[in-house]
């Protein structure tokens, strides 16, 4: 009797080869067979809803029995089911897919086509797959039984079955973990957290519901604002992190939505961006990096969509025009919300910016209108400490340096003078500062060059000028060969005897000169030519501080004999304090000077016995 109904066929493909491709190259983990089975169930339910929708409610039932290699897993849906022709069709699809390769997987999204591939993925964890299906359109129930050696049987079953499909998997050796109750519960939630149909997991001991009804804010993310606690709890459950704030995401088409959870800790610019994306309610990717704009590295998102095209593995998305538009619109959601906060909820914005200033600056550098709205909250480093721009701009004109190097050259002196200088050296900062007048026309910014700190120095009196004239001239001639000029001033702090400042040109010239010493002839000559134009502009200035008692004494006409050595040593000292690389000539000078001063010291000590 039985044989009458049973036919044995062979897959027209090399099945073990296919399974190998699936498990080793396409899917990130064998556990995706659960995703594929859930997907089959959802597709079948969707198809049945379209077929007849009177009072029908879709549901998915998962049951596990037995342990270790004796374990069996049943995944059942009450969807539309398959008739015989359709079974042959999906098997044919499997055959085609091996010939067409990955393209088939990425383009064919029909219910039947997907069904076959989904079932095939089960071979990763089972050598014995049985499917029992009853089509809602009528006809006998069918049993399909497949083996990885490439054979399968189809059998017509007697009796009446409710429409739907059951897939039974027997555990394959080595796959025990995929049949374990705890894992099943975790993974089913993992993939199906947003499914609109209940999934029930039944084992020997318990029956539990994996997912509750999908919350209303999934349909309309704007509603999330009213369900704050629930959304944060959901974020913790799904993403495993405790968040304190979020921004709802949506696109105009309404086909993509989500929640951008604000990361509770600061992140690096190059941190991995792992957003979790659900396609047609099913998790497809936990590491979608290209679905938000680059600047949005301060959020971790849950995103659901039905308009993007997954890649072959169904774990990422194709970079196409559609994705580009979605990315732009999701980015816009975040931008708009931040701008809204600036207006209505500044405290909230401030707490986000305090953690994620870098991300905000990246966006501000890209978008002037965003910058104009949030600029007051962006923090910058300055001689007055790290302060928001809104506070800093109260001190016009707002001086800033464009590099950290320049800032370093003047920071001590500027702080001692209570002069506000903003450090534009870190990423985006100088750019934002130079654009500040564009977003606030009332504020005046000025780029400060190191040689300009002297703006705030006190000039010496005409009498002092006269008294020290000869000494200054002498000092000037000593440093002439280093393209450095001498200025005598008074400035705070008095502990600093000398300050070496360097224009950009002279900094560049110093590097060129130093490189010439080690390069090849052809390139040294080139560097020489490049340096020639810089040379005229390349004067550094060494400021001597008359407020410092030693300087007053050193410049006194009585010490003119020692003055050249003193000047040279202070020059070398200033270079070292400013972390400038010294060239050969300067190092030689330093060595000579140290010996000279030891000699002088010993001579003096010889006279006084060291008791002075």
């Amino acid at each position, binding site marked *: 009797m039985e044989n009458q109904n049973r036919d044995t066929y062979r897959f027209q493909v090399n099945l073990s080869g296919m399974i190998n491709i699936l498990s080793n190259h396409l899917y990130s983990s064998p556990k995706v067979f659960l995703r594929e089975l859930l997907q089959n169930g959802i597709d079948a339910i969707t198809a049945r809803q379209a077929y007849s929708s009177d009072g029908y409610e879709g549901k998915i039932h998962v049951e596990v029995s037995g342990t270790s290699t004796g374990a069996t897993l049943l995944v059942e849906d009450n969807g539309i089911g398959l008739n015989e022709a359709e079974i042959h069709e999906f098997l044919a699809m499997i055959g085609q897919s091996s010939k067409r390769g990955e393209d088939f997987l990425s383009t064919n999204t029909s219910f039947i086509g997907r069904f076959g591939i989904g079932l095939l993925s089960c071979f990763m964890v089972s050598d014995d797959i049985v499917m029992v299906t009853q089509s809602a359109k009528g006809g006998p129930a069918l049993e399909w039984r497949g083996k990885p050696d490439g054979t399968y049987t189809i059998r017509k079953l007697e009796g009446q079955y409710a429409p739907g499909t059951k897939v039974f998997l027997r555990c394959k050796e080595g796959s025990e973990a995929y049949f374990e109750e705890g894992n099943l519960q975790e993974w089913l939630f993992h993939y199906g957290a947003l499914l609109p149909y209940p999934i029930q997991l039944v084992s020997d001991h318990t029956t539990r519901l994996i997912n509750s009804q999908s919350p209303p804010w999934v349909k309309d993310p704007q509603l999330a604002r009213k369900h704050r606690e629930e959304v944060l709890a959901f974020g913790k459950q799904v993403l495993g992190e405790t968040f304190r704030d979020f921004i709802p995401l949506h696109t105009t088409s309404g086909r993509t939505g989500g929640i951008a959870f604000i990361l509770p800790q600061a992140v690096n*610019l190059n941190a991995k961006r792992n957003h979790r994306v659900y396609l047609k309610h099913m998790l497809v990717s936990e590491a979608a990096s290209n679905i938000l704009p680059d600047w949005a590295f301060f959020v971790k998102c849950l995103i659901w969509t039905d308009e993007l095209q997954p890649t072959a593995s169904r774990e990422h998305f194709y970079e196409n025009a559609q994705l580009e538009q979605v990315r732009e619109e999701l980015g816009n959601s975040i931008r708009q919300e931040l701008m809204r906060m600036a207006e209505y909820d500044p405290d909230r914005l401030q707490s986000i910016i305090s953690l994620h200033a870098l991300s905000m600056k990246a966006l501000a550098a890209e978008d002037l209108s965003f910058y104009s709205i949030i600029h007051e909250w962006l923090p910058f480093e300055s001689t007055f400490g790290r302060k928001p721009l809104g506070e800093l701009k109260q001190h016009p004109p707002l001086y800033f340096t464009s590099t950290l190097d320049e800032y370093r050259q003047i920071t001590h002196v500027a702080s001692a003078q209570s002069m506000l200088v903003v450090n534009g*050296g870190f*990423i985006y900062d100088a750019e934002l500062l*130079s654009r500040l007048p564009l977003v606030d026309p009332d504020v005046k910014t*000025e*780029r400060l060059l190191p040689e300009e700190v002297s703006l705030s120095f006190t000039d010496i009196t005409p009498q002092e000028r006269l008294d020290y004239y000869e000494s200054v001239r002498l000092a000037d001639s000593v440093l002439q060969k280093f393209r450095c000029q001498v200025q005598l001033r008074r400035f705070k702090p008095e502990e600093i005897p000398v300050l070496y400042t360097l224009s950009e040109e002279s900094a560049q010239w110093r*590097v060129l000169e130093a490189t010439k010493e*080690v390069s090849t002839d052809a390139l040294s000559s080139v560097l020489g030519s490049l340096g020639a134009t810089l040379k005229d502009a390349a004067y550094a200035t060494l400021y001597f501080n008359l407020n410092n008692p030693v300087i007053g004494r050193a410049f006194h006409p009585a010490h003119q004999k020692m003055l050249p050595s003193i000047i040279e040593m202070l020059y070398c000292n200033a270079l070292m304090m400013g972390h400038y*690389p010294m060239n050969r000539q300067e190092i030689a000078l330093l060595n000579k000077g140290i010996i000279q001063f030891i000699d002088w010291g010993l001579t003096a000590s010889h006279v006084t016995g060291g008791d002075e």
Partner: protein
Amino acid sequence: MNLTEMSFDDLMEEAYGLPGGKAKLELLEQAVRVADAAGDIDQGYEARSEIVELGSFHGYPMKALVAFSWQLGQYDKNPGRFDDYSLMWSYKWVLDRITAFADISRVQIENLLEDMKTRFAAEGYSSRTYHYYRAHILAELGELDASQAEWDIVQTMERDEMSDCQACEQHHLVEFLAKREDDEATVKAAEPILKGKMSCGEVPHVTITKVLFPLLRLGRQKEADKLQKKGYKLVKGNRDFLYHQGEHIGYLTLTDPIKALEVFEEYIASSLDHENPVDQMIFNAYSAKMFRRLAGESIRFQVKLPAGHPCEHQSGEVESLAKHFRQLALATAEKLDKRNGNAYYTTLLQQL
């Protein structure tokens, strides 16, 4: 963050994490200082390798040249200590931009080309790359016929490991044909690139602007408009593409001048301290042209200029802006022509 307290490794690690730009450059320069202060040649070499690459592809060609000069010197002094392949490859980046500096004489450029030829031969590479760069350099010097002769030699030789990628080579050809003002040949040569059959890190970014004007002149504005939008996205935000950002301004001046002004405002700040005089010149020249065009409009423009720009107080006077930018461009063109011994660049600016 206190830069001066960071170790070499910390500086490098932080630098590796940043996108190409000024902040990254600063970290690398500090790393060089730390390495030099410690007398550590290997670290100095490593940090400078990064500067050469960053400088070459993010708009600091002078810094790249200086860092490379140091590397080559150390390479010669310490035989066998450093990898020759990547250093020889860097040589090409340096030569690619060397003509942009008018202070570097023709003799010096010739010497470098010969030096490269000798070194490549010593490492067993063919002289194809030498001819290829000679063709490029001659074209940059405005000697198009001599350049053509080198191109002819290149065509007969086989590629080797030192050859630029095929997309880059094809792009150089497109660029050369554009210089020859052969519109049809330019568009034709660009086809494989525009169709996406050839691409690399900088192609088609730099190729697209080369065909915009030819397409417009051939009456194919629709195609050109579409390409312009695509191309602009690719060069957006990277200061290494100042030349091309300038060309976008130039094209938009003809098709959508208000949009051209927006592009100008986006890049004027990065053009100010740009290290490549030729890129600056082209940016300024097209900007001048745009302002002349805007001067003909009946509306009044308020141009957004960055803090410290010399014309900050003339931001409403497009005519004087046109003059300012034209003068800047011409000054560079005259210096280049003087070095080159012809009138190529001044003529080019007049024709833009």
